[in-house]
């Protein structure tokens, strides 16, 4: 068992180029642009939303790093789940997440998304976000400081740039698993029926 967050440091510092060498140059370029430009969905799902304003406004100015807000899920790349999710919110988060265009990422803030946090015995919040949606990056804290959030974004950017993250792919591949978990807490009303087979759809113009 490591002392502290050594693992996190490893993730951030390790050289992953060896794994990505098979990427075509277009992929490489696209990943670079994706990394440089991150649109974050404007959805304050929980208390962590209170540290979003400092992060995105002049004090910490996330736009320096190419991170900016997007109003609708259609335009967003990243959804921040900022802390606990009540069932009612989870339903909206799932809906919103499914409306985002691939590739899309989830940044989870705070203790609550990991193991229930201080609402571990609350009857109305979920305990582990990863059961319901694929989480790309966790940020530690209750609530995380803006620096932590930026650090989370930078780690996410690095992963995107390396083309390593494909959580949306994971979600589509294991949709049955996620769907089962979602239905377990939300009932059959989790998402409208038309979404049930959207992941099978392949094609279009």
């Amino acid at each position, binding site marked *: 068992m490591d002392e502290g967050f050594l693992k996190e440091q490893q993730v951030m510092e390790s050289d992953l180029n060896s794994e990505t060498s098979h990427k075509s140059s277009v992929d490489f370029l696209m990943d670079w642009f994706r990394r440089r430009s991150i649109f974050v969905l*404007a959805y304050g799902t929980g208390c962590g939303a209170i540290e979003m304003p400092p992060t995105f406004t002049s004090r910490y100015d996330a*736009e320096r790093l190419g991170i900016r807000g997007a109003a609708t899920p259609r335009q967003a790349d990243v959804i921040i789940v900022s802390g606990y999710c009540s069932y009612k919110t989870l339903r909206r988060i799932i809906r919103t997440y499914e409306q985002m265009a691939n590739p899309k990422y989830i940044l989870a803030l705070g203790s609550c998304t990991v193991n229930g946090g201080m609402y571990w015995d609350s009857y109305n919040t979920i305990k582990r976000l990863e059961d319901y949606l694929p989480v790309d990056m966790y940020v530690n804290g209750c609530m995380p400081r803006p620096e932590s959030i930026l650090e989370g974004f930078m780690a996410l950017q690095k992963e995107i740039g390396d083309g390593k993250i494909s959580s949306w792919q994971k979600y589509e591949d294991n949709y049955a698993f996620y769907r089962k978990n979602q239905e377990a807490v939300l009932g059959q009303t989790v998402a409208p029926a038309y979404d049930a087979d959207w992941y099978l759809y392949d094609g279009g113009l």
Partner: protein
Amino acid sequence: MIILDLALMLITAYFVGFIYYGLYRNITARFQRRIGPTIFQSFYDSIKFFGKKEAISHGWMFYLGPIIMATGAIMTLFFIPFFYQSESFSGLSGYGNLFLVLYLMLLGPLGNAMGVGVGGNPFGVMGVTRGLTRLFALELPFYIAVVAIMSISQSADIATIAGSQTTINAFAHPLLFIAALFSFVAMMGQSPFDVVGAPVEVYSGPASEFSGKFLSLLMSQSAIFSFAKLVLMVNLFLGGADGFFELLWKTFVLFLFVIAFGAIYGRFKTPQSVDFLIKVPTVIAIVGLIFATAWGN
């Protein structure tokens, strides 16, 4: 030959437009006491969206909406000459005139409105309605000013108008220029007239449903279109340009003014902005028109 000319115009407008948007974000950031993104940020955003793995479509009309909008923007660009004397960078302006440009400017938004409408998002349609409502309000003072300019130059040919200004129109007919500037701020979608995509009101407005490459196309056309509008304003009121340097600084000054205006004032409601536009700038424009026709000729 003309194809090459058009391609060069398009490429220039695309890159200059995006750099202007980068500057816009940077300068706005400075007004907001922050550092702001790199100057190429909008360009990165646009490429990223082109490279999104998927884009949600609501059928063929939805697909065509942004394309029509981009076509409208590019057509507008093609019919506005960059320089009043040069053969190159004059595009198709020999085949058209100012009336055509004024109408081409409306073509894209109307085409896109079809795409938005078919998307079925009520927020999008609200945004479009707001846009069309604002449109006629901002056109009134603008048209009066432009008509006066056309009458002064006795031509509806943009290059002729640009070239015929001994004193540039902004100084010769300041009232017309001021009226047109108000309209221009609205045309660029700047505060206080930024009602169309006001995020706290109508979500994302017309862009609510557009994702991936559609959104990117909209961003690109917006960059091109903004540049086209700037060039048009320079041609009509600032005496046109005779070289790239002149064109760039003139458009930039105009652009800076628009940014500053947008940073200072908050957003009007749609009826308020309509009311404002058809009162204040219109009265200014009519007075300017009377002055221009009484003394100009």
